């Protein structure tokens, strides 16, 4: 079981960002599934129960907060750790997300895809969320 590749659900509407993250995460040995909007994100989370979910906030159909509420409101998916993919200037949203049950957040503008991968590696290795991903 230890060596089973972890499955990541990436919910992100921007093609380039999505592509970059998929490349880097796959290079790091993860199985990455993608959803291009909030609605698809909820459906895929329900269908596949990934090990971790990376969730963009500003998305068509359903925004990240709505997705997070549904995920955390459903017994089947509420155990999935969710990391928000955020931008600067969204402190209010991040605080709200933590209240709903987000595990951490990743500042897209500050991090290169390899930094994101590094944080996720560290999360799976230690089982803990790096402290800097917890500050809102």
């Amino acid at each position, binding site marked *: 079981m230890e060596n089973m590749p972890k499955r990541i659900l990436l919910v992100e509407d*921007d093609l380039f*960002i999505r592509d970059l993250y998929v490349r880097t995460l796959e290079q790091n040995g993860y199985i990455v599934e993608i959803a291009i909007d909030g609605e698809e994100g909820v459906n895929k989370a329900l269908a596949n129960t990934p090990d971790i979910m990376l969730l963009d906030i500003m998305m068509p159909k359903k925004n990240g907060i709505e997705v997070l509420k549904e995920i955390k409101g459903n017994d089947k998916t509420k155990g999935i750790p969710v990391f928000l993919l955020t931008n600067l200037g969204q402190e209010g949203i991040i605080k709200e997300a933590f209240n709903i049950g987000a595990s951490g957040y990743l500042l897209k*503008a500050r991090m290169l895809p390899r930094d994101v991968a590094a944080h996720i590696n560290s999360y799976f290795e230690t089982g803990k969320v790096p402290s800097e991903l917890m*500050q809102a």
Partner: protein
Amino acid sequence: MNIELMTRYRKNIEISVWMLIIGIGLFVNLSPQPVVQQSQTILNIVILTVTAYTIVYYRFVAPRWSTAELILSSILVYTVFVFLVAHFTGSLQSVLFSLVFVPILITALMLGVQALLIVVAGEVIWLVTEFYFYFLPFHPGISDPHILLWEKLIAILLVSFVAYDNSREIFTRQSEHELLEQEKETIRLLQEREDAILQSMDDMVLSLDTNKNILIANDSFAKTLDISQNEIIGKNYDSLFTIKKTNSVGDAIETIDLTTITTKEVEDNDSKETGPTNFRLQTLNNDKQLFVTLAISNLTVDLKDKETPNDMVAPGRVIVLRDITEELQLERMKIDFVSMAAHELRTPITAIRGYLSALKEEATTSLTPEHNKFLDRADIAANQLTTLMENLLSVSRIEKGAFNLDVRKTDWVHLIGQRVEELANRAIERGLQLNWEPPKENIPEVLVDPLRVSEVFNNILSNAINYTQKGSITISVKYEPAEEIVVTSISDTGPGIPREALNHLFEKFFRVSGVLEQGSKGTGLGLYISKEIIELHKGKIWVESTFGEGTTFSFSVSTIHNLKLRKQFEQENAFRV
């Protein structure tokens, strides 16, 4: 028919009636064939009453007459009277001769400047009358042809005195009247002008007494309330509108009392915590909301009736309210535009940086050294762009008053150590010596938002690394127990900052001239943001520099022992344990 003409007619009629009565009276009294005694008495009373009325009339009405009118009418009245007396008595020597003084008196009362002329004219008329009695063949007969000289002299003296006295009186009245009219006119013009200024002002002007009653409200204010000025004046302002202090996003903080708020309170309202404060005017009758600035001055002159001494001690104030609703909207749109633009730019920049880093990781070996250099430069530029956008967003949030702190108890030495470690490589790359000695003394935890303060430290240290060509950078941390602050200093051996630039260093978009040419890529925002962040922490930031020798930036943060600050952060909801 105009009023002036009507007045003149009335005067003529009055004079005619008066002369008629006098004439009848004299006829009855002085006729050689006496009529019934009783009618004589009644008529005498009538004559005296009318005479008294006339005196009063001329005393108080005549001042309004022109001099020519006065002279003409007086000569006319005098002549007719003397002739009547002479004709019916056959003499000016009758027992009722004293009555001749009545018209003389009246005439004198009516006199203007030419008092003496009139008296002389009267004398001439008298003489002519006498001539008529003594020498003309058809005279009615003379009972006593001898007129005593002394009687005439007394009469002339009397007339002269009364004429002089009255002409002076009339003259004074006339000039007083004119002065009064002039003064009234001046006051009216002044009032009109002041009123015009007040009414044509775009700003709303209000004057209040200490009980919140409105003494004056200009047109602009009436328009805002959609009711007439008359309906506003005298009312308590609480019944018409409220004024509330608002924060930067327009939420009302508290209602203020216009009669007690001081100018200082109005001006001191911009705070770092809530952003620029404005005032919101809320009308109660038509439910309008305006954002306004206030200018308040105390009344030094009482506007109420000046004759009531009590009102003089009750001062009020004048309040000028300027509608800035539109300006605020524009300002907000501007800020929103910057922040929106930066937001929109971020996603593509993130992609650019992502792909560049992927390219650098995966394609380095297959590229020529020159191509690799291109890639490095593109990467550097993309990083700069990211910094610039982050800075623009920070500035926009600072100006919106939306820059929030997340204050925690923080191990300062540990935090600084981490930050130094992160930047140590860059200093080494540039051949600089980086000195960081954790202080030996025990330093209490500090009250900071670690992320924000790290930004400040990184910014100052990066600047030091970028601008120092050779030498060293020294970081020191010092605890000052007296003030319960920790001061952190970053000294470099760089080129230093020219004296004239030192004062502007923390201003937005300020760049030290000449630096740009050296190829550095600052945004001119870093130090401005740093200053704002440190001030949000109630700390200070300052710089000392000797041109050509180096620069030291220092900033202070408070320790957890500053309980007052801790409480303040808690109240602002910025402190989380």
